[in-house]
């Protein structure tokens, strides 16, 4: 069931003019920043720590702790990651287009708390409308005095620059994003140093936060960290945006109180996903982006809680849930995910650059009915090169976590749908119907 939790990040996105400064100010906009500026930066950070806001980008690292790792130095940067490209994730895209001022305000709060005077919002290049809305909001914020030499007359000075990406999935990885922001190829950096807080943008200490993460800050400061922890359960506090897609009646984003709602609610509740079209059965679902291992119908009653999903062997990741019904060919789905990784591998590390191609190739011939039974072991062997032991959380043989994310879908199919794989081999063709467009 859904709860009566307040909408924290989507309170105004339903309004037709939600992206304008006028609407933003009329709905409490920039009050969180005003309050933050009346507090000491350390107290702002403490409030966010109290909220125990988990990063909404995919890794789920506590935002407050990320800030506290920042080495005190003369120059520090804040980078807001709006390069949303994890397949089936579209929540940041919505926030950027519909509530850009909330992102500007959240960025300003985070910058004030961390003592940053120059912040960058890295917006995915494909979001042309989003870039226009963000730039417009940024310009308006300067005019309104919420940015610039005297932020709301406080004496605090902050500049924000909207930076466009240019089309590369890997730039969502925070160190690749920093390389990209330096005008280079988006190659993830070798770790250690593990965190940009030590060596980040332009070699300086840097905090990287996700768009949805900073969008929570105006509310947290206005209502207090306690108000946020009153929602959710355990370490999964507040609300969170979930992006639901695939074979559901109502694909879309939903802001949901953490922990209190289950995957079953998300997929079947009439006010949320509305169930599977045609009353078909659920075959499987991906609980948190294509890097996450799949779940079957037996996991539907799991709560939307980061720890619970982790213990069950997958992750909430980017908060995107993909639904596959009884007509969905699981082999085709896994092949398409493998193809995505093959196309987007940055090419730095051999296991990923070469492995992704082999995995795609083998999965493709299996799906086409041209594979052999031994191909199942062969593809798992290729996966094992990327992530030895094929365990969860995955081990890593590459610079970043992109490579070890590739096996998730493949191992899921091999474990959950071995029979279906074998039917492809035996019949020499795919036994499932093609994916067709819904007319009308």
């Amino acid at each position: 069931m859904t709860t009566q939790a307040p909408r924290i990040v989507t309170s105004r996105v339903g309004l037709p003019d939600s992206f304008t400064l006028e609407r933003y100010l009329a709905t409490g906009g920039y009050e969180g920043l005003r309050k933050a500026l009346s507090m000491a930066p350390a107290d702002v950070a403490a409030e966010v720590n109290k909220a125990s806001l988990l990063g909404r980008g995919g890794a789920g690292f506590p935002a407050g702790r990320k800030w506290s790792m920042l080495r005190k130095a003369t120059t520090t940067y804040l980078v807001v990651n709006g390069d949303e490209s994890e397949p089936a994730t579209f929540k940041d895209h919505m926030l950027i287009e519909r509530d850009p001022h909330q992102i500007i305000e959240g960025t300003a709060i985070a910058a004030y708390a961390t003592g940053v005077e120059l912040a960058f919002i890295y917006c995915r290049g494909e979001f042309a409308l989003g870039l226009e809305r963000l730039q417009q909001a940024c310009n308006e914020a300067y005019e309104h005095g919420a940015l610039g030499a005297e932020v709301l007359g406080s004496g605090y000075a902050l500049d924000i620059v909207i930076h466009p990406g240019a089309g590369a999935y890997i730039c969502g990885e925070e160190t690749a994003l920093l390389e990209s922001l330096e005008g280079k190829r988006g190659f993830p950096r070798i770790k250690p140093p593990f965190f940009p807080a030590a060596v980040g943008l332009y070699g300086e200490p840097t905090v990287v936060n996700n768009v949805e993460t900073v969008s929570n800050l105006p509310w947290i400061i206005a209502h207090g960290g306690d108000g946020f922890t009153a929602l959710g359960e355990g370490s999964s506090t507040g609300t969170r945006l979930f992006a639901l897609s695939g074979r559901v009646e109502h694909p879309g984003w939903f802001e949901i109180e953490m922990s209190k709602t289950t995957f079953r609610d998300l997929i079947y509740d009439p006010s949320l996903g509305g169930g599977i079209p045609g009353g078909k059965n659920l075959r499987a679902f991906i609980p948190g982006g294509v890097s996450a291992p799949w779940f079957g119908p037996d996991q539907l009653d799991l709560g939307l809680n980061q720890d619970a999903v982790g213990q069950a062997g997958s992750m909430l990741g980017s908060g995107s849930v993909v639904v596959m019904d009884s007509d969905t060919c699981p082999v085709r789905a896994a092949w398409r995910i493998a193809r995505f990784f093959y196309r987007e591998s940055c090419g730095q590390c051999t296991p990923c650059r070469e492995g992704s191609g082999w995995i795609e190739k083998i999965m493709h011939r299996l799906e086409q009915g041209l594979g052999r039974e031994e191909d199942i072991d062969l593809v798992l062997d290729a996966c094992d090169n990327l992530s030895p032991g094929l365990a969860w959380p995955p081990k890593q043989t590459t610079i970043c976590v992109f490579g070890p994310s590739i096996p998730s879908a493949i191992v899921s199919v091999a474990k959950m749908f071995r029979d279906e794989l074998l039917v492809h081999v035996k019949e020499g063709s795919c036994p499932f119907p093609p994916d067709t467009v819904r007319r009308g």
Partner: protein
Amino acid sequence: MAHLSSDNRQMAEALVACYPKRRFALLPLCHLAQAQDGWLTEEAMEDIAGLLGCTPAEVRGTATFYDMLHTEPVGRHVVTVCTNIACMLAGAYELLDHAEASLGISVGQTTADGEFTLEEAECLAGCDNAPCVQVNHRFFGPLDPDGFDALTEDLRSRRLAETVPAHGILSRIERSVGLPARAARTGAEAGQQSVSATGPAAGAVPE
């Protein structure tokens, strides 16, 4: 003779001024050049290198990493059909097959009249409107084959010229200020380009 127009060179300087080092403005300048020409020409990359103080090879080496930057000519409308998981489940491959047949070209090709270049995209974050398509990075969807044909017809007849600007143009809203906070700190007048052209306030950015 510079390839970028004098207006665009001025715009390039304003963009460069937003970054602690000139080189860091490489991607925004590539977008600027692509907005001027529709694609990233050899001459533009040479210009950008000159503006940033790097070599044209560095510009090309970076640009070719990114899907949105085209170092070969493209059509007036770059149509990208997403076929990633959510769109695939909504029939994106059927839509892509239709697009190829309807336009008479394969993925990666441009129609003879220069109207359309067809591309297959990875997830465009439009999964609530699957299958989704972008034209010059403006979203359309969910689209069925008939909807696709209606869209291309509208594009051909320029009925969508307002919502779909020429390829390469991303934000039509320009930044209205320089870095006034930084300018105030360095004691100069806010918004003056000369301030940021001298480099970062802290002056401690390593190469």
